[in-house]
């Protein structure tokens, strides 16, 4: 037995690894064949015009099959399976990426024509047709989202601290359960909740920005609680015990040891929860309404917000249809840019705040 193992060659005799050149040739061959097939189909009148998506899909499938067969012949079963799985995983990744790239491409192409100084310098007051801008909506979105964050972060953070550090028994279980339930609330219900709440105090038909902030908080708090909770649970218990053993009271341990250790993750979670709510349309449509004028005051009158602006521009196209559509696309682009910026900031913050030894 031992001698057999000793004498067995490290590389099986028939093993010839697929070189990069073979792989590229296979890929090229698949593409040529697939595009050829679709070109002939097109010429023969079987399709209306050249089906590029079909050609790419066929080329991908062909390439995976070819590589598998070649590898099976020259490299053996284990390596062939590895190549097959690698091909499938890569394809899945590209399929995931496709809608995202398509979405960003479309938004940029359609949004750029009105991505100008005028858009960021004026509201829609007294504008019919071309011109005007989305400054009022941008300000509204920033104010309402900012207010929602101001409400949600303290509530969410403290709830998470309670759940992880203090909560025991029934009450903690109940809170966890309701937080989970709240994560699944449809956003329109949050809007109706805020509307019903403020209608009690200010009568029916109330519309103002802070109501929207409250509605968004209902959506944001569970996300903040959940992400913060997970981050606090990641802090090793040994650090808490180390602080206790030095005679540090519990609350100081939480403030000075637990929170600093988890702060990077907490901030990232908050940033992502902002990204989650900044594009909400339905609740704002109900409780904030829409306005064509600038309104800086969160506490009185309707306000414009970017998502609702996109919706109204698209829904009520005036005489100069293209002008309305352009403004809608540009607003969408601005919204995407804000979310991108928030994600970038979250990454930077988590890089600079994470414990230096672990970076």
């Amino acid at each position, binding site marked *: 037995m031992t001698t057999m193992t000793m004498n067995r060659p490290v590389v099986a005799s028939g093993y010839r690894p697929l070189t990069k050149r073979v792989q590229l040739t296979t890929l090229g061959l698949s593409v040529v064949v697939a595009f050829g097939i679709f070109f002939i189909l097109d010429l023969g009148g079987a399709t209306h015009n050249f089906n590029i998506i079909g050609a790419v899909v066929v080329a991908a499938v062909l390439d995976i099959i070819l590589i598998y067969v070649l590898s099976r012949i020259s490299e053996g079963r284990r390596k062939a399976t590895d190549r097959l799985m690698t091909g499938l995983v890569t394809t899945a990744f590209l399929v995931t990426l496709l809608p995202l790239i398509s979405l960003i491409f479309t938004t940029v192409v359609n949004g750029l024509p009105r991505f100008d100084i005028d858009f960021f310098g004026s509201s829609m007051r007294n504008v019919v047709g071309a011109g005007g801008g989305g400054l009022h909506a941008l300000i509204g979105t920033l104010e309402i989202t900012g207010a929602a964050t101001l409400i949600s972060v303290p509530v969410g953070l403290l709830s998470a601290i309670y759940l992880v550090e203090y909560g025991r028994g029934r009450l903690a279980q109940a809170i966890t359960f309701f937080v989970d339930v709240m994560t699944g609330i449809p956003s329109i219900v949050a809007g109706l909740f805020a509307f019903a709440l403020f209608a009690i105090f200010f009568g029916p038909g109330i519309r103002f920005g802070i109501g929207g902030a409250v509605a968004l908080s209902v959506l944001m708090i569970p996300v903040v609680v959940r992400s913060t909770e997970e981050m606090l649970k990641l802090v090793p218990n040994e*650090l808490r*015990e180390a602080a206790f053993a*030095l005679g540090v009271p519990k609350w100081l341990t939480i403030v000075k040891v637990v929170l*600093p250790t988890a702060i990077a993750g907490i901030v990232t979670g908050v940033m992502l929860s902002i990204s989650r709510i900044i594009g909400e349309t339905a609740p704002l449509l109900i409780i904030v309404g829409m306005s064509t004028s600038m309104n800086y005051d969160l506490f009185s009158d309707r306000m414009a917000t970017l998502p609702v602006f996109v919706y109204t521009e698209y829904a009520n196209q005036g005489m100069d249809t293209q002008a309305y559509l352009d403004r809608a696309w540009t607003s969408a682009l601005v919204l995407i840019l804000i979310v991108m910026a928030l994600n970038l900031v979250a990454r930077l913050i988590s890089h600079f705040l994470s414990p230096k030894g*672990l970076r």
Partner: protein
Amino acid sequence: MSKRIEINDLNVYYSNFLAVEGVSLTIEPRTVTAFIGPSGCGKSTLLRTINRMHEVIPGARVEGEVLIDGQDLYGPGIDPVVVRRQVGMVFQRPNPFPTMSIRDNVIAGVKLNNRKMSKSDADNLVEQSLQGANLWNEVKDRLDKPGSGLSGGQQQRLCIARAIAVSPDVLLMDEPCSALDPISTLAIEDLIGELKNEFTIVIVTHNMQQASRVSDRTAFFNISGTGEPGKLIEFDDTTTIFENPHVQSTEDYISGRFG
């Protein structure tokens, strides 16, 4: 600086489970006492009752007395936070605070308690504590680097420096060398020998050679079976325990015939 610990008829519980039963022993000041015994016999549990770290675990409680210089740690009106400032602890796994530099780790006991301290006092305390933990020469040039960048043995000595920086009366060590290599272990054992001049030290260890090397007195604990409470079997001078134990099970355990 160092004080006498008296444990009188102590029972330790986790909720309804009796983990340690009827322990009575006296630990003299400026001595090293080793707790030895098989896993699960309650050595660490007993150790954690000496600075009230035991009750950090939900449902944990004790019956009986733990006296430090005659004062009952579990008496009415005793704040566990104050107890822990007098009885320091070093844990099994080195646990420096990852957000802090080496310097801040050493003075963590002061800084975390929001006590103000002048820079020169802080510098003195850092140097003194690191000298005390035999770490000064290795880290004096990189005090502002994170503590988690040190090797395991250095981290453990950093934790010892952190514990002695708050100048406790008693130092508890819960298997401080079990995660370390023999050389770091030797460094810590030497350190224990030096710290003995200032502190009362109680050390839990699974390594019987270590117990015989570092300790003056040794307590042997045992359990009669799973689910049974741990009991103090024998407590005597280390030489007596290892050379001439009075109880048969002690002899079985230290000679390796046990279990």
